[in-house]
């Protein structure tokens, strides 16, 4: 073939392949418009004020005022004490809210939204704050978000105050996966996936950081802590930590992975140690009363793509109870109260939130569609 012929062929090939390439990019960017339009059928999402303490978004405040008026009236009329107590409980439930990442298509996609805990599928109040992962407690929040760099995307952990304003932020080295805050709101922890640097890719590890928001002391990696495994100091390059859950401001539980196994560890912030407690416990989540851990357990015969089952471990008896959810849960569950946990499963819009009783009874119920990373507020 002549040089001219070859060059013509190359030109034609580049034209055709270039067309396919440009077409795919155009198609993918057209998706941006589509996803900015409010999706049909989902709950309405409107901008409003969202806070991380008590009841505060506009509708809630209105409801509260009405309720307060009613209550005052009732009192004047000398209603019974039991009725009053019921109402207080009812008020508490109504005041309780869920804040999570909204994944519904529309202008508020990926923003933190608030819904009344009693109507999780109801109208969502959007905060304007974008997060990939989120958690909040004690009036403090942690938001792991994407930040566009000049030549590459970066991620950062933003510490939020009760009004969702940034207090400080910290650069992350990988893709956010887990975030937790201690009950007081003082201690925060997050986990990211770090991908290998080798040419062919393939190796992944996790990096878990712990932040004290009172002193702003940041432990960049839990790997700085002394590991005590089976009663003796332990060291290994393949050590990974993920999924911290705080017991109090000085202690936490987490997962330690090493040598192809995972362990439940108890960590001590002051002593900078983690001690292994039990094998095959991932992504622990401590109950509000501090007596039980919800966690995902690797099942030996399960398919490699769905390896986990959600369990609850009683810390006093060390007895495990499998939950009624039959699907493989890859999430760090959140306790809605002492009897129910919520977790994310893949859904039509990224993920949906589901709940299941913690005693192994009942069956899973969908809590909210197109939602991720919930936190109970109030």
């Amino acid at each position: 073939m002549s040089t001219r012929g070859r060059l013509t062929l190359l030109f034609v090939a580049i034209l055709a392949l270039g067309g396919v390439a440009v077409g795919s990019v155009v198609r993918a960017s057209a998706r941006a418009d589509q996803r900015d339009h409010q999706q049909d059928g989902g709950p309405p999402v409107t901008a409003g004020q969202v806070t991380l303490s008590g009841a505060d978004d506009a509708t809630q405040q209105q409801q509260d005022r009405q309720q307060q008026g009613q209550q005052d009236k009732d009192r004047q009329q000398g209603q019974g004490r039991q009725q009053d107590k019921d109402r207080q409980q009812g008020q508490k439930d109504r005041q309780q809210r869920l804040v999570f990442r909204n994944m519904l298509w529309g202008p508020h996609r990926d923003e933190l939204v608030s819904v009344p805990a009693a109507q999780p599928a109801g109208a969502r109040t959007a905060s304007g704050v974008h997060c990939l992962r989120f958690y909040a407690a004690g009036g403090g929040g942690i938001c792991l978000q994407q930040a566009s760099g000049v030549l590459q995307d970066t991620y950062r952990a933003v510490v939020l105050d009760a009004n969702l304003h940034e207090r400080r932020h910290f650069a992350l080295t990988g893709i956010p996966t887990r975030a937790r805050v201690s009950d007081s709101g003082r201690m925060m922890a997050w986990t990211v996936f770090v991908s290998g640097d080798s040419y062919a890719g393939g190796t992944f590890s996790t990096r878990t950081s712990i932040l004290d928001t009172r002193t702003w002391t940041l432990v960049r990696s839990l790997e700085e802590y002394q590991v005590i495994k089976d009663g003796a100091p332990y060291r290994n390059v393949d050590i990974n930590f993920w999924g911290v859950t705080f017991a109090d401001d000085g202690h936490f539980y987490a997962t330690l992975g090493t040598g192809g196994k995972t362990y439940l560890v108890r960590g001590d912030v002051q002593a900078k140690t983690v001690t292994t407690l039990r094998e095959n416990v991932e992504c622990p989540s401590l109950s509000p009363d501090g007596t039980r851990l919800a966690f995902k357990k690797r099942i030996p015969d399960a398919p490699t793509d769905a390896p986990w089952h959600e369990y609850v471990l009683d810390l006093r008896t060390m007895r495990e109870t499998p939950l009624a959810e039959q699907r493989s849960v890859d999430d760090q569950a959140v306790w809605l109260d002492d009897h129910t946990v919520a977790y994310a499963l893949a859904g039509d819009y990224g993920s949906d939130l589901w709940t299941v009783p913690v005693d192994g009874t009942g069956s899973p119920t969908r809590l909210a569609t197109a939602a991720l990373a919930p936190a109970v507020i109030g």
Partner: protein
Amino acid sequence: MYLADARSVTKPAGPGSDPGRQASTSHDHHRDHGREHRRGRRLARASLARVVPGTVLILGTVSLVTDISAEMVTAVLPLYLVTELGLSPLGFGLLDGLYNGVSAVVRLVGGHLADRGRRYKATAAVGYGLSALCKPALLAVHSMTSIGLVLAVDRTGKGLRTAPRDAMISLASPAGTQGRSFGVHRAMDTAGALIGPIIAFFIMRTTVDGFDAVFTVSFCVATTGVVILLLFAPSGDRSPAPAGQVPEAAEAAEAAEAENVSTRAALGLLRVRELRRLTICAALLGLATVSDSFLYLLLQHALGVPDEWFPLFPIGTATAFLLLAVPIGQAADRFASWRVFLAGHGGLLVAYGLLLSPVHGDWLPIVVLLLHGAFYAATDGVLMAAAAVSVPAPLRSSGLALVQTGQAVTRFACSLLFGAAWTAWGDRTALAAAAIALTGCVALSALLRPEATTRPEATTKGLPAR
């Protein structure tokens, strides 16, 4: 037009060529010289090719384009697995050992197949094509297992093509310019690796969850690479290039030709003393070469640099590699590639020393990464240039695959050993141990001296008149 023919334009020996090395090639040299001279005049008009053979530029372009495609995917794959597929990528590295083993076997098989009937181009095209097909396949599969499988096929493609491609580069380059040719090729290759992630980033920025767009564009780019290879790379069925050979290699070449490049002939390569020693030395040095990820971890531990700097480390190494590949390749032509290869490991040893030393400063990561990049520039292509001299042309691909595999296998063993040492003793002690091992391996390799210049009978006669 056969671009490969342009290789003959280059003078067989530059003014600064190492005379000893040149002498070692004397057996073939007289015969080749006249032939090259005639062809050289015929093609003297190809001025660009005077600097670097056209085949090398073509293969460099193919590698550049292919690396853009590969690194585009590498840049977004972790995010794709975690956010789009919701997979936990932990434990993904467990298959790494298996991949490495498969890759080593594939490389040897690919190298040998390419020599049979001189199907360098065909074998390389299959390798590049296989990797290109893996890009759309990534979009079709959604489970960890199947994605692992696609990545394994991608690596198989890479394993298949490496040795035939390097054989084509060496066969297209006259003796005394091998280092420069490999340097140019590796520089172009690395440039692609640096460009790829940037393109992926811009696609992700203009789209919403544009992983499909990244994979599609990556496929189109990779296919362009295959098209360039098929249209412009020379087919291997023409006479092999007159690259310099040692006498034993020439005998093996004759044997190979007689046996039509049988497996026995390929195994016979181990009887070529220079090649055997080179393979042993490369493997020995590979045993003390700490993997990139460990080195970056050590750098971070030593300096306590902020986390956000960490992703910049590989970019630093690649940039240094890109800038130094050609000058160091030329140095390899001048001072004998084997010595440069050894010096590169010396540079790595200095980097280890700096990491162990108590001196710290803002300059330290820059110097360490510069040394690390220089190490790659002085070892990656240069090793191929060194090996090419000892391998007869009909067995070039098999021979290069042998050396590469020896090195890759021991480097993998090193990462296992280093991991164990880290576990047992901690990072600094492990690095100190690696530094001692590297010192020993460098000393031992220097003693073994696999370079052809050690042959007294070759140095005393047949110096080309210039």
